[in-house]
């Protein structure tokens, strides 16, 4: 039972930031596509902006790994 709760906590630690990241990237992506169509030279900036929210899920991954290694 305890292991199941730890696994659930680890899964939530990754999945919730993943949903948030996906939402943010969808918003940035649609705006970015419009921007690149108008001004192709903004492609670099858009890639950077698109990649920024991924930090959330990376941090979630770190937390999940710590949970598993610490308690499982």
């Amino acid at each position, binding site marked *: 039972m305890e292991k199941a709760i730890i696994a659930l906590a680890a899964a939530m630690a990754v999945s919730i930031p993943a949903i948030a990241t996906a939402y943010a990237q969808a918003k940035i992506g649609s705006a970015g596509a419009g921007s690149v169509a108008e001004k192709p030279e903004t*492609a*670099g*900036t858009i*890639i*950077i902006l698109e*990649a*920024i929210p*991924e*930090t959330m899920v*990376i*941090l979630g*991954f*770190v937390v999940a*790994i710590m949970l598993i*290694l610490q308690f499982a």
Partner: protein
Amino acid sequence: MKRETDLPPVPLGSEGVEDEVRRFESILAAEYERKKEECRLIRERALLHLSEMERESLRIAEDEWTGKEHALESTFYDFDTGHGAGDEETRGAPSRGRGCLRGRVGAGTSRDRSDVASAVRGGRIMIRDMVRLSLWGVQSKKKEIVRELFALGVLHLDQDTPSTAEDDGTFNSLKLLRGKVLGLIEALGWDGWNSLREEDLGASETSLLDLSSAETVHEIDRSLEAFTSRLASLLAEAKEKDDLLDRLNRSEEVLRKFTPFFSGKAPSETEEDSLWWVENGDAPALVASLAAALDGGERHEAVSSHFVAGKESFGLLGLRTSLSAASIVRRVASESGAMPWRPPEYRDAPPPFGKLLPDVQRAIEGLSARRSAIEEELRTAALQWGPRLAALYLFIDEKTEEASVEAQCRGSEESFSIGGWVPGDALHETARRMEERFGTDVLMQWRLPGEDEWKDVPTALKNAPLASPFELFLRLLRPPTYDGVDPTPMVALFFPFFSGCMIGDVGYGVLFLLLALWLKGRKLPVLRDVAAILTHVALWSILWGLAWGEFFGDVGHRLFHMKPLLVERTQGILPVMIFTVSLGLFHVLLGLFIGLCQGVRHHHRHLWMEKAGNMLFLIGLIVAILFLKTRLPKELFTVPVSFLVIGIALLVGGGGIGGIVEAFGSIGNVISYVRIAAIGLSSAILAMVASKFTDVLGLSVLGLILAFIIHLLNLVIAIGGSSLHSARLHYVEFFGRFYSAGGKNYTPFRKRSGLTWKKR
């Protein structure tokens, strides 16, 4: 640190240089004398007649001369200084003392220019040193001089120089002609720009090079006249045939649908067939009305009808009635809102519809044959004329650019001047070529940019062949400022290292290497750059694959008992994560160190304080964690605490509260490098999943196919994900510490060659 403006002036010792300057001064002096004499004559005449009109002429001529005198002065002096007319430092003949002038060559002199390269070496990091070049020439040679500069292809013109090209008739004619030729190329449907050869371009140049711009326009226009009219008539005919073919095809479709009805019983000479457009629901009512109308006239005739519903709300109604009832049919149909249908070729008197189908089919065949012949003729014309027209287009495009540059030149009736930026390493060759070609007809001066001009100097990157393909990453951003740092060598080192660490598979690395070798043979320069980058990534992937012990996941272990040199990623998650964070710490600290050096170099106190504070903060924090987690002597704990305190003090001094926020951002940046471990782990697990299929399904065809598909998917994810994340680590975490993207691209005025020619 030595600044650009502190460099010793280039010695100007040659007598030839002074001769050249004296020659230009004598031209100005002669102009002055001529205008003075003109004024004197007008004045004398005015004084003789003393009429009001001539007094007025005298006043206008004197005003005009005063204006010209100022213009001539400023043409000669103002151009070189870049600091406005009347700059005392540079006024006068060759400067030997202090001031902006650093070098001067009157072409045709024997000045030794070997010191040029050493004089312009400014110690920039991976960015070419630029010099400000000013050139004067005699007006009669303006065209040739501009053309030579164009062929040299090193001069980056001032973007802010106003151009009068739009007011120039020849320039506008060239633009118009360029558009016309491009229109012809597009009408021909030719798009072989990548297959265009230098010889194609050479042919156009050889035949037209000696003509003036106006003559060129006339000559090209004349030679294209016959071709244009032939092409226009072919295209018009093709369009006409297409329209007719379309209509006939639709007629054929209709006739096919009514053939059973009309051919079932051949019409007698007293019967007539007709087809009507009617609304889908109206057909039965129309047939009933018609029958009633015929009965009412006591004709007792039967009405044969057949209705085919259309895709939309209209359908076609076929009628067969007696010839004598034709007028009644037309009246009733018209009253019901029906419209007659006729095949396009037989609008006036169609033969009986039952016999029409073969005629329409024959017409379609004839038209299709003619359409194919036109298509073939156009294809032949495209093959024959496409490359020629493309070469002509490029030639006119270059001529247009030359005309635009000529219009940007400033000057008087006798001389003109032009200026811009030239890489220091190209200056010697430029001066030599101009000297050989134009002798005493040009005068060139150059100087190093002043510190206040650095924002206007274009940035040209200078990297070793091994690193230059990685300049591709900087093309997505604005180039670094002239006084900034080009991070390309560091990208060349870290990008493939990070990507390889994420992929970390010998098998995948070998496949990427093969892909890179294939791409290397491609014509497009960007693909060759990608191939070079991929080669680096592939080699690092193989090395990391050996370190992690992976060959297509665990296939290496299963088949060859392959062992990891360092650690197996799927087993040692924590060590890999710690390693990647350490890598991130080093990378971020490197970025901060470059930022610190930039701050010190440019005497930006806030910048270097913030970067130094950030570095000390990060180092202090990591060392403090090490003290807490390991058995390091606790007495030395004051060292990391001191680092932290000094770091925070510097951060506050350099950037205030923002500096503290920046420091916490740096911690996030360092942790962000965990993605290298995370993506690598997912790639390794996916590769293992692929192998599991063969465990579950055995060495069956299905098992192998599924394993192959999963590996293929993993391969795509590996190269896409690793490249994107590695690029992101550079753009956000690394460049954010020091990169100042405010530069201007170095875009010299030059010929397009190789594969760089494209429609604009």
